[in-house]
């Protein structure tokens, strides 16, 4: 039996907090947009596919083989997902550690994207793991301390918690839990520092996973420096993703934007572009060092070499110069498109390392199955839906009047 007081408290929660102040019927009607229907369509196909994969095994759903045990679920969902969720630590460091307060309006969106990114990386990982129910084993019972994968598992798990903590003030503001919010705000600085540590470790360790394949990964991509490459490129990915995500948010959630902040976005976009172009510049030269170290110049002339040049010139050097040009000429539109190109470049790099240049000298070629692609799309769609749900409700893109100095 529910007491009358509880029911009266519950109804405002449901209508005000969950249905945006609408009645159930109006709320459902407000959801009937082309975007929502596409998303529902993808989920309607994708969720049964994921169930199918768990019932019949990885072989039935994927094109993975003994020679190619890792496919796009690792290359896109996990490796690219983690890199693109790096905006959380990048922006939190910029604002909370370096004290660049003028970037504060993009920190919460970046932390939310980071948290959702990691959450859905874990979801993707659970789908990819053969025996996901054994996940507690390395966490609690049997520590494979010599394994890079062990370090990655721990860091990703802890960092997901840290991101939740960093994001939780918005959640508590939404729920009106004043005391909890204050506690969470006090933890912001230590959480940020812990986040930087964990991110440094696992962003680089995702690259270090591939230290174990000196004979299998193409020499143009294999390098003892690969952990450094992964870490530096995660900064680039984080900055670009914040540009892409904040601009999309301003386009698709204009009503959620703080009135005074609309003009700030171009300035922030250009500032992030400056940072990204400088990091890309350094990254390009670091990659050259990797090439010199591998002594792989003679391979540039091969088909893999041509593809390597596409990555290096088209997805590293070109964005570097375009970002620089955009910042120099105050062209936020160019900066936005360059950010999208850079994001694509990060995905290309992660796929190159984990799939395309992997087992390059083996006869078998891996092409993802339709079900693998659908599953990846489904996970991305779930991420976008949860993002939309939260942005429409919690103070992410704008501050609540009662918490003016939140950031």
């Amino acid at each position, binding site marked *: 039996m529910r007491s009358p007081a509880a029911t009266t408290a519950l109804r405002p929660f449901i209508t005000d907090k969950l249905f945006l102040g609408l009645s159930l019927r109006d709320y459902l009607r407000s959801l009937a947009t082309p975007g929502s229907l596409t998303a529902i369509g993808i989920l309607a196909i994708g969720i049964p596919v994921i169930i199918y994969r768990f019932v019949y095994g990885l072989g039935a759903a994927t094109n993975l083989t003994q020679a190619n045990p890792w496919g796009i679920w690792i290359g896109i969902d996990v490796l690219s997902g983690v890199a693109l969720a790096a905006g959380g630590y990048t922006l939190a460091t910029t604002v909370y550690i370096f004290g660049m307060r003028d970037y504060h309006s993009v920190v919460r969106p970046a932390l939310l994207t980071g948290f959702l990114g990691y959450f859905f990386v874990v979801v993707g990982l659970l789908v990819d793991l053969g025996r996901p129910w054994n996940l507690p084993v390395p966490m609690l019972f049997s520590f494979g301390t010599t394994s890079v994968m062990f370090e990655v598992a721990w860091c990703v798990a802890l960092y997901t918690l840290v991101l939740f903590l960093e994001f939780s003030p918005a959640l508590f503001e939404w729920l009106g839990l004043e005391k909890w919010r204050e506690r969470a705000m006090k933890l912001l600085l230590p959480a940020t520092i812990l986040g930087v540590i964990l991110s440094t470790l696992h962003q680089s360790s995702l690259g270090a996973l591939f230290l174990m394949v000196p004979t299998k990964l193409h020499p143009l991509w294999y390098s003892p420096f690969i952990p450094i490459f992964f870490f530096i490129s995660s900064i680039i990915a984080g900055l670009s993703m914040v540009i892409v995500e904040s601009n999309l948010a301003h386009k698709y959630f204009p009503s959620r934007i703080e009135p005074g902040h609309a003009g700030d976005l171009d300035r922030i976009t250009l500032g992030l572009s400056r940072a990204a172009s400088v990091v890309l510049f350094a990254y390009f*030269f670091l990659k050259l060092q990797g090439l010199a170290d591998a002594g792989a110049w003679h391979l540039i002339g091969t088909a893999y070499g041509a593809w390597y040049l596409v990555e290096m010139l088209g997805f590293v050097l070109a964005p570097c110069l375009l970002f620089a040009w955009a910042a120099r000429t105050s062209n936020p539109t160019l900066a936005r498109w360059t950010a999208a190109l850079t994001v694509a470049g990060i995905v290309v790099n992660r796929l190159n390392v984990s799939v395309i240049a992997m087992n390059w000298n083996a006869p078998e070629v891996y092409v993802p199955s339709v079900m693998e692609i659908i599953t990846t799309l489904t996970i991305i769609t779930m991420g976008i839906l949860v993002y939309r749900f939260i942005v429409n409700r919690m103070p992410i893109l704008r501050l609540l009047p009662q918490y003016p100095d939140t950031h």
Partner: protein
Amino acid sequence: MPHDILTLYSSKALEYGIAISFLVLFIPFWRFVMKPAPAPAAARVAERPRVPVAEAVEWFQFARDVGFHPGHAWARFGQGALATVGMDDFARQLVGSQASLELPPPGTTLVQGEPAWSLRNGDRQVAMLSPVDGVVTEVNPAVGSTVGSLGGDPFGTGWLMQVEVRRPAANERTLLSGDAARAWLQTTTDALRMRIAPDMGLVMQDGGTLVDGLARAIDEDNWDAVAREFLRS
């Protein structure tokens, strides 16, 4: 791994070569990326139109829509990072229309509270302090080499330059505006009045305009010291 001792020498030399090339290229690249750009044309046009506000503190024009620096420079912030900067009517009348105006060229970095442009009369010159931090992107082409060329609208057509401001919000907070600015200008005017002895005939007979070039009128030989006192430079 891929190198033995014989190829290692040249490989290592190449790596150092790449690193040194990076260092050399990094300097111009950094300067290219970090130098603030000229403001977008759209923003520049949007800055200009302004409805003149007829308001005055005693003898001096006053504007509500600008932020005043205590050194009698003002800044008006619009959308984005661009600000319009000028000198106020007090400063204009203090130095007089025949004083020559030396504005910094576009690309000059300004620092709030540091000398930004100078006013010269004879062999003496006085600096005015910048109200903002930023880089000059444009100098008002309508303003010539003398203070007199500002015309009668120092807060409008008599603006001096456009500045790309690094931190508009932070700069704006530190400037005086609205009633606070009015009160400050009143205080300053009172201070000026104290310097004007009634017998000096600074106020013209025809109803209260001041003579052109107050500072010279107060102290002909040391006008620059008087101006510096009010302009805080």
